[in-house]
């Protein structure tokens, strides 16, 4: 039969147990290949943005400077 103490799991005890669970997690070192892939993706995104920005600026200037006939 379950005794009183066994049946009394309150939030504080649970929080403590959850804390132990989190403390027990081993976070592996970042994989250099994954990190390199991220940095390459970042660089590619910046290049795309720079290209898009330059392109849109060019179109805007072209439209402003287009001579009227």
């Amino acid at each position, binding site marked *: 039969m*379950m005794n009183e*103490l*066994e*049946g009394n*799991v*309150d*939030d504080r*005890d*649970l*929080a*403590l*147990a*959850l*804390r*132990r*669970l*989190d403390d*027990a*997690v*081993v*976070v*592996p070192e*970042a*994989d250099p290949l*994954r*990190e390199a*892939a*991220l*940095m390459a*993706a*970042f*660089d590619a*995104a*910046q290049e795309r*943005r720079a290209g898009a920005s330059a392109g849109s600026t060019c179109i805007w200037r072209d439209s402003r400077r287009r001579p009227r006939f």
Partner: protein
Amino acid sequence: MQESDEELIAAVAAGDREAFAALYRRRRPDVYRFALHMTGAPAAADDVAQDVFMTVIQEAARYTPGRSGVIAWLLGIARNHARRRLSARRYEPMPPPGAEPAVMADPADGIARGRQVEALRQALGSLPLAYREAVVLCDLQELTYQDAAVAAGCAIGTVRSRLHRGRQILAATMRGERRAFAPWPAAEWL
């Protein structure tokens, strides 16, 4: 002086490569932990962490300072990726024995504590997803209710009620597990 998360994300949005690398190194462990608790699989947690920072590359400018902390924003992204993977996993076989997450109990604490951690991990993994999110965000990641609500995409009251229900289920599960481990005293178990 070390830049804050908010300063880093603003720099990332402005195209600062070093800021992105710094944010990744600083916050990847938080994202990985969250993803591991949500998915229960180290490989999936690694993939989710990668997906999150891929998303950051595209979406950094969408972070709104003041609405939530950067961690909550990152975990909100992680939540979406983790849900997607969990949804896909329903059609895959369960991971084989021995492929469970890397959870290391302190050897000095003995077998009982190791079993306790493992039992709790299983109980957490069996919680309904919405309750698991609330428990992981509030009790493990220690976010405020407001930040947890932003990360989970719901109202603060909803986070509170999900957290309450999740804790109830976990406590009930733990009581059942503790009975199964009768040789260990109750105080030792939790």
